[in-house]
C-alpha cells in the first residue's frame, strides 16, 4: 500500500502498533441534533501507560471516557479496544470487553441499596466468581481504601469522599486491563487525592493502563511519566506530543 505523503499518521494507525490498547480515529460524537460534542478525536494509548485527560468543564471529557468504557457509541469514526473495532461490535460481545475495563464514574453510581462491601464485590459477582473466593479480595480492597470498618454501610450513610473511595475500590477490584476514572479526586481532600494517585500508580506498575480525567493540574504533576491529553471544545490537543507514537513503557522517553 502506497503511503501518500501527508497521510503518514493514518498509515501508522493502519499498521497497528501491537502495544496499542486504545485507538480512536477521527471519532465524532453528537448527542441528538446538537452540534458535535466531540470532533475528529484521534489518539492511541499504549498498554501500561498512565494518561491524564484534561479540559475545561463541558469540554467533553466525560463524553470521551464514555466512548472508551463502551457506555456510548460514536456518531462517526473508529474505536479499537484491545485491537478490535468496538464500534461495529454486536451488542452481545460488549460485556466481555466491559469486564476488562474498570470505571470510576464521575457521579460514582454506587448501587444505593447495597452495602459498601456488596458494591465492591459487584464486579466479581458479575464475572461469576465463587462466593467463597470473594471475601478476601473485597476485605483487602476495603482496607486499601481505608474503609475497613465501613463495609456494611449503605452509600447514603457515607461521606462524598468515602463514596468515591468505594467507587474506586469497585473499579479496580476486578484487576481491569484499563482503568478509567472520571474526576476521581473531585470530592476528596488533597491528602486523599495524593493517596489515590499512589494507588493508581501501584496498579499501573502491575500493568493496568490508567486514564484519568481531571482538571487538577498539581495532581497531574504528581505522577511522573504520565502523559496528558487536553480537550478543548470537543477537539483534542496533544500537549505532550506523544500520543500518536506512545512509548512502550511509561517514562522511557
Amino acid at each position, binding site marked *: 500500500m502506497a503511503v501518500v505523503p501527508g497521510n503518514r499518521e493514518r498509515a501508522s494507525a493502519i499498521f497497528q502498533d501491537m502495544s496499542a490498547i486504545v485507538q480512536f480515529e477521527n471519532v465524532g460524537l453528537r448527542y441528538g441534533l446538537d452540534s458535535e460534542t466531540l470532533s475528529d478525536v484521534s489518539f492511541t494509548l499504549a498498554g501500561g501507560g498512565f494518561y491524564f485527560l484534561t479540559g475545561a468543564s463541558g469540554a467533553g471529557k466525560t463524553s470521551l471516557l464514555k466512548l472508551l468504557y463502551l457506555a456510548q457509541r460514536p456518531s462517526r469514526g473508529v474505536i479499537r479496544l484491545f485491537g478490535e473495532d468496538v464500534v461495529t461490535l454486536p451488542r452481545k460481545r460488549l460485556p466481555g470487553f466491559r469486564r476488562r475495563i474498570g*470505571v470510576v464514574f464521575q457521579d460514582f453510581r454506587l448501587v444505593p*441499596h447495597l452495602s459498601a462491601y456488596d458494591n465492591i464485590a459487584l464486579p466479581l*459477582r458479575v464475572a461469576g466468581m465463587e462466593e467463597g473466593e470473594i471475601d478476601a479480595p473485597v476485605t483487602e480492597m476495603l482496607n486499601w481504601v481505608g474503609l475497613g470498618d465501613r463495609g456494611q454501610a449503605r452509600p447514603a450513610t457515607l461521606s462524598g469522599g468515602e463514596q468515591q473511595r468505594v467507587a474506586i475500590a469497585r473499579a479496580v477490584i476486578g484487576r481491569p486491563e484499563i482503568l478509567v476514572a472520571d474526576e476521581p479526586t473531585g470530592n476528596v481532600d488533597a491528602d486523599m487525592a495524593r493517596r489515590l494517585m499512589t494507588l493508581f500508580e501501584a496498579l499501573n506498575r502491575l500493568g493496568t493502563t490508567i486514564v484519568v480525567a481531571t482538571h487538577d493540574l498539581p495532581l497531574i504533576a504528581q505522577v511522573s511519566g504520565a502523559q496528558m491529553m487536553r480537550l478543548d471544545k470537543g477537539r483534542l490537543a496533544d500537549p505532550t506530543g506523544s500520543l500518536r507514537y506512545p512509548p512502550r513503557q511509561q517514562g522511557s522517553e
Partner: protein
Amino acid sequence: MASRADRRAAAAARHRLLPGGRVAGPMLWIIAIMMFLTVLAAAAGLGLGAAVQSMSADLAGRASVQVVEANPQQRDQLAARALTALRGADGVQAAAAVDPALLADQIRPWLGEEATSGDLPLPALIDVTLTPGDADAKVARLRRLLGGLSPSLRIEPHAAFLLPLAGLLSALGWLAAGVVLLMTLATGAVVVLAARGAHDSHRGTIEVLHLMGSTDVQIARLFQRRIGLDAMLGSALGFAFAAFVILLIGLRLSATGSELLGAVRLPPISWVVLALLPVAGVLLATLAARWTVLRALGRAL
C-alpha cells in the same frame, strides 16, 4: 463444583442486587385474583363439558316410540306389532315396552290420580336402544317403517328433548374456555407491565451492572426470579381459594339431588388439569418477565 453454602451465599447476593420487597408492586395480588377466576372458569368449562358428554352418551343411542291410540285394545295390538317390527329392524339393538304402571307412576305427579284410573288415554311407550353410530339416519328409517304400519306410531329420539340444553351447556363450556384464554392473556399483560415497571425503577442499577459487563441474560434472570416467585405465591393463593369454592359448589350441587345438576361434576382428571393452571401461570409469568426485560435491555447499548 460449588459447595451448598457457597451456592446459598451466591443466591443471597443475587437476591440483594434488587432491593427487598416486591419488585413488581401489587402484581402478586392481581395474579392471585386472576388465578382464582381462571381456575373457576376452567372448572366450569370442564364440569359442563363432562356433563354434556355424559348426557349425550346417555341419550344419543336411544329413542321412544309412542302409540297414540285412544282404544286400549287397538293400542295394545298396535304396540305388539310395532315391537315385533322394531325388533326385526336394522339398527335396533333392543326394544322393550315400557310397563304402563311405571309410566303411570311417572306421570302421576303431573296429572294426579286420574292418570292411573284408566279413564285418561295414555299412549303406550316402547323404549328403543339403537346400535351405535348415526342415530339420525336410523331414527329416520324407523320412522318410515313405523309410518307404514300405522299413522298412530311416533318415534322421537331422546337427544331431541335435551338437544337445546346440551347446546346451551356446551356453549357455556366454550365461554368458560374463552374466559380462561382471556385470563391468560391478561395475566401475561400484567406481568409485562410489572416487569417493565420493575425494569424502569431499577434503571440505575441495571446500567451499572451493564457497564461492569453483566450480560442481558444475567440481568433478566434477576427480574424473572423475583417475578416468578411473586407469581408462584399469587398463583398458589388464587388456586387454593378457587379449589375451596369449587368443593363448596360441588357439595351444594350434589345436595340438590337433581340428576341434571348432579351431572355437572368434576371428574378427577379435571383436578389434574386445574392443578396445572398455577404451574402454567408461574411459567407464563417467568417467561413474560424475561422477555420483557430482555427487550427493554436490548434498547440500551
